[in-house]
């Protein structure tokens, strides 16, 4: 199941920020991680991922640099900035409250107030 565009627009950046909070990652790695860890729900192609990354970079939430990868080729690695960490923290709290609210309404099964 894939999310509708509007839901993805809200959830995607937070998911990316969360992944990058663990370690710096490159584009393909992010695509794979998102698909795998969300069981395909947050799977996104290059057309969605790279514009999202550029937007986050423009906002100063992430920063990028080219490094040599394991296979010897250069890859662009994205990492969370201080501003990005703060934003992620705020997003996590917001998502928790949202989940709680949706749970209390019975929209989210297994989550209740």
């Amino acid at each position: 199941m894939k999310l509708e565009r509007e839901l993805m627009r809200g959830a995607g950046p937070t998911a990316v920020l969360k992944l990058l909070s663990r370690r710096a990652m490159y584009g393909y790695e992010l695509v794979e991680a998102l698909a795998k860890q969300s069981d395909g729900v947050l799977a996104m192609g290059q057309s969605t991922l790279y514009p999202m990354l550029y937007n986050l970079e423009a906002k100063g939430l992430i920063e990028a640099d080219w490094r040599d990868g394991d296979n010897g080729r250069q890859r662009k690695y994205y990492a969370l900035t201080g501003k990005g960490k703060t934003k992620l923290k705020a997003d996590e709290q917001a998502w928790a409250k949202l989940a709680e609210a949706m749970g209390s309404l019975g929209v989210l099964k297994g989550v209740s107030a």
Partner: protein
Amino acid sequence: MSSTFSKVRGWSWQHSPMLAMWRAARGFVRPNREAFALLEEAALPEPIHEVVRNTIVRTKLWRDEREQIARELIAHAQDAIDAGHEPGQIVSTFGDPRRVARLLRRSMKRKRPLSWQAYRFSRRVAGVLLLMLFVSYIAVVVRFYSSEPQIKTDFGAILDSRSDGFGEDQKSWTTLVECGVAWSKIEHLLAQEQAGRAMLQTDADDEEQDIGVAIFPYIEPDHPDYQAFEDAVRGFASYLDELRVAAQRPIIGLPVGYEPIMEKWEGRMFVTGVVPAGPDDYKRQSMIDIQLIYLGSLRRLSQVLIFDARLALVEGDTERACNDYIAVMGLARQARSEPYLFSELVGISIHDMVGVEIGRQLRKQDGLFDSDQLRRLAHTQARLAQLPIIEIEHERMNFRDALQRAYSDDGHGNGRLTPEGFEYYGLMTAPPDDFGPVTMSDAVTVDPRFRAATLPLSIVFSNSRGQEQAIHDSVMDQAQTVLDRGVQWISLMQDAELIAEQVRAEETPMRFSFAAMLTPAMQQVVANWFQYEQRVGAFSLMIAIEAYRQDHGQLPDTLSMLQPRYLPEIPLDLMDPARSIKYLVEGDRYVLYSVGSDGDDDDARAPEKPVDPYLGNQETSFDLRYPQARSPMTNKPIFESGGKPMLAEPTGPDGDWILIDTRAVPDSDAEAS
């Protein structure tokens, strides 16, 4: 510390306008060069190569941005291939290159330097403003071209009603037109014959024309042009006979709304007459134009009569000279009786002209006219002196008529300038204002399409109908107040003149103002009126004194001896309103004078600075005698409890305003100029 400095310096460099301009400029030259080189080097499978290439081209980004995207997309594709994905699968998950390019372009632009973001923002703001301006302009254009004036009041009919009850044989306009056209032709021929001097060339420039007006009719026999003028005036004798008869008729009586007749004569276009108006003609004509056409010739025909009087006096024919003077006064009366301020001013000027001339001839020769001639002059003068003060109501009518022809009407006295109004405005600025050769103004040629496009903007910059009316009313109300209450209120006109000056100053090629164009300089008009009133009183006294001298062989000792036989009332001194004009006898000569702006009698001693005895000047102006007291705090007029202005002490120069002085016999007519 140095790290922070380095970061700041790096940030500044990345966001500097210079770098942004350089990056943008590079994009114009082979924008895909680096990106394509990377693609070639990566040797991706053909389908992936094409998708990435199309995407990069469609981003339309700067050259280095395309390179960045190319590197990232290539790396992504290579990672996917390494992970075992088929090229077809990779392409299918890539999405539509057009959409991807659009998303990449948007997001990449957000990363651009602040200077570029500021430029883009200002460009958008400018675009929005331009759009708003365009929409506003369209609204103004629609508003302008959809409005039209409505002529609701037939002011022409109202003005024409003054002729009710008068037959055609009691109107002078046909004779005036006939004589005006005939003399304009003579002048034209004279000007051609005397091209070097061009004294009477009516289409000469202003300076030449002024010289002509100044010299004629006061030209002396030793002047090189005298004989030519004498021949011309003698050849005009039959017209002068007609003119003397027409000048005694009650009114001019030309109906409102004439059409000028233009014909080719002596190689150029001439205004050779007028066609009286029908009811429809009125709608096409400005009332201002209508009456101005014969005013110039009225003044010129008066000059011809005065010159003829001089010829008559040289011949000893005092009867013809007297009749010429009476005719000139008749023309002055007719001009003053017309319901137009300009016409009244021309009448005043003609009356002044003949008064000065009679005074000059009387000084040259005692006992010039016999008792009967003096009686007739006095009678004509009295008839003229009894005319009411300048009628401003007619001027108001003229202005209301101009507005109703130019502005739309919302039914509440307001409206806006219309396309017809603009045409009308232009028409009023260049009317044929005299008989004779048609003088074409040097009109500025404007592309009609440009004019049609820019004209609607005039309603943005120009006053509304209500505002125009208010400006005109305020000036006219002040003038009416001063004319009604008396000369001591003259300084109220300062406010009115300030309003008028301000409006005139604001008139621009995009800001049309009928108030600026049509509101006369009322401060000058009102002052001129009072000066004229004073001179008319002195002129009446002079004729009465001469009549008394004819009958008694000596001058009266006092002016009261003239009453009631020679003059019903002794005119008052406007500078000393409780008393009459002053009279001083020295032997067989006398002086008529006013106490002047200093307010005290100096026994007919003029101020040290020469004062024009007839026209007055700054030293004799009324606002020096009647300055209005003003609060230094508010600069507002201070009034007494009864509503009268609190007047300051007289501040004029020491001396009197000499009105008529027969002590010095003029040996030259140069003073007249």
